[in-house]
């Protein structure tokens, strides 16, 4: 199939060696830029999201806010009544029936893990030092499935027995605490003391400076919510379904459901802007690639007018001539893509080898996924064919008698 067309197409390309080489290198450069930028941005975004969600649930369920309800008779006709309502202070409240809710949530196919939590603000005290903290009472095994807490331990062993706690690395430094030391915890009028079993690095310095993780029961008694949970943390199978799941939960039950996107609206906006910029760059590069291939093939059609005329005189159909040039576009696109993907792999290797952070490790991991490489190569090849359409049509429409006379 296409034996004649492919033979002539490859010979035409081989004949215009330098021209062919230049355009293949041009396509390769374009493909390399697209593949490299795509991999870089994907890696950067994945890294950012991983760091953000490393210490955060995908969806958080919490009780609805306390609101002040006003029950007043409507003002009489012709009378306006101005009412100022002072919003209520939000006290720690438990999610009603959370223990029944957990298995229902776990049964949802989108949900990978559920973890109850009691959170409150407080102070960590050691000697004369005291630091504001975010107290989190959790079931360690469940919470580990939400934020992979055990993998974030930098010192000690994650354990949450009665009277034990895990604290952030920076908080430990601020308080001068090491694994095994005791720290006082004060919330409202209640205080307790816990032994530090592990220090964790949650990936964000500010979180490390505030985080104190204690057993659920300890937090319940510190906050004054026996048997309660101020929130339920959910990890999802697909992080990008968080908003849909949150909306769904909020519609089904009388709780507040917040997705990680809502909690990090600025981050999501930045990621979106980044994606749009990348798409624009990719689009422009692909347009340049298409124009490059098209211009070379237009020149080739002019150079090969006589040969086209001979082929037509010998009985080549318009379709055969059309396919000869379309194939040239496809071949240039495919070879350029293969070379471009190799070039992208080299660029990525250079980035991960030479662009290092202060710790001597790559700033973040970027890899060229085979699927991405294939997609970029396929798009470039299709672009090659599309770029060849106009020159190919022109070649096919050449008047053979006139072409031979040239």
């Amino acid at each position, binding site marked *: 199939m296409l034996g004649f067309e492919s033979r002539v197409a490859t010979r035409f390309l081989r004949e215009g060696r330098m021209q062919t080489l230049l355009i293949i290198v041009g396509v390769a450069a374009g493909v390399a830029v697209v593949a490299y930028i795509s991999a870089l941005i994907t890696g950067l975004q994945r890294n950012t999201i991983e760091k953000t969600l490393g210490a955060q649930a995908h969806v958080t369920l919490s009780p609805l806010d306390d609101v002040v309800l006003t029950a007043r008779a409507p003002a009489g006709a012709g009378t306006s009544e101005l009412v100022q309502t002072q919003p209520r202070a939000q006290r720690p409240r438990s999610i009603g029936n959370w223990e029944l809710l957990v298995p229902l949530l776990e049964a949802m196919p989108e949900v990978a893990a559920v973890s109850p939590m009691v959170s409150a603000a407080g102070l960590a005290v050691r000697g004369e030092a005291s630091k504001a903290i975010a107290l989190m009472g959790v079931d360690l095994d469940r919470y580990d499935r939400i934020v992979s807490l055990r993998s974030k331990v930098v010192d000690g062993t994650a354990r949450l027995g009665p009277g034990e706690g895990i604290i952030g690395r920076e908080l430990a430094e601020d308080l001068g605490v090491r694994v095994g030391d005791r720290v006082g915890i004060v919330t409202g009028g209640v205080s307790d003391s816990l032994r530090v079993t592990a220090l964790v690095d949650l990936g964000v310095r500010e979180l490390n400076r505030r985080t104190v993780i204690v057993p659920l029961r300890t937090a319940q008694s510190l906050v004054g919510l026996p048997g309660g949970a101020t929130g339920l943390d959910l990890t999802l199978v697909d992080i990008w379904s968080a908003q849909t799941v949150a909306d769904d939960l909020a519609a089904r039950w009388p709780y507040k459901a917040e997705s990680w996107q809502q909690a990090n609206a600025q981050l999501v906006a930045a990621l979106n802007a980044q994606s749009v910029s990348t798409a624009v760059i990719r689009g422009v590069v692909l347009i340049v690639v298409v124009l490059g291939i098209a211009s070379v093939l237009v020149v080739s059609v002019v150079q090969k007018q006589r040969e086209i005329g001979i082929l037509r*005189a010998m*009985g*080549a159909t318009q379709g055969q001539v059309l396919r000869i040039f379309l194939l040239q576009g496809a071949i240039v696109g495919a070879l350029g893509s293969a070379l471009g993907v190799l070039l992208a792999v080299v660029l990525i290797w250079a980035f991960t080898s030479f662009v290092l952070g202060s710790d001597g490790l790559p700033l973040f991991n970027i890899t060229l996924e085979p699927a991405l490489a294939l997609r970029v190569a396929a798009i470039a090849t299709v672009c090659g064919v599309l770029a060849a359409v106009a020159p190919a049509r022109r070649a096919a429409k050449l008047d053979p008698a006139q072409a031979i006379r040239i």
Partner: protein
Amino acid sequence: MSAPAAATPTGPLIELEDIRKSYNLGLPNEAEVLHGLSFSVGRGEFAALIGPSGSGKSTLLNIVGLLERMTAGSYRIEGEEVNGLDDGALTLRRRTTLGFVFQFHHLLPAFSALENVTLPALMREGRVTPAQRERARAVLAAVGLVDAMGKRPGELSGGMQQRVAIARALVLEPPLVLADEPTGNLDTVSSDEVFTLMRRMHAELNTSFLVVTHDPRLAARCDRVLELVDGRLVHDGAPAGAADPVARG
């Protein structure tokens, strides 16, 4: 029981009737270059088309070769009217019925001599069978190019290139070969060689030839001469010196 003999087509190979060709139709500078030509070429004929420059020879050859459309008239190939056929049908006709030899050889420079000769088969079937390759070798050998089969046109002399072009035109044994001043670009010796070769292939394959030439010496070696002057056929008959059949071979 013996197999029935293959039917031999009867009647002329091509028949042209009142052929007219105008350029710039409908414009103020409209010009008719062929004014109602009528003639036919039979199977196995070797005819020359002569005439001064600008007499319309190449235009007529292009019309006969289905490379240009006539403005008016009737043109039948093997009895089929081709006026009005679409481009695809004309291309198919060209592929199956006609072989071309041009003045400037017009070989594909990126292909070797052998590949140029196998091109028609490749074009027709998408591949070249071993038998077709052998046939191409045999035709190239017949035109005296045994040692030049692997060479590119750029490595061959003008005469050798024209032999390759003749081999390419004949390899699929079309009923009619159209040659547009095939020796016009060659020196006298090469010119004689090429013409002699065409006559020999004509004799061996019984292919019809219509040869445009400026050279009266070569025209005299044809069986029949059609002379065109200002787009009109002014002579159709035996060439001068036709009494000397030795001179034609």
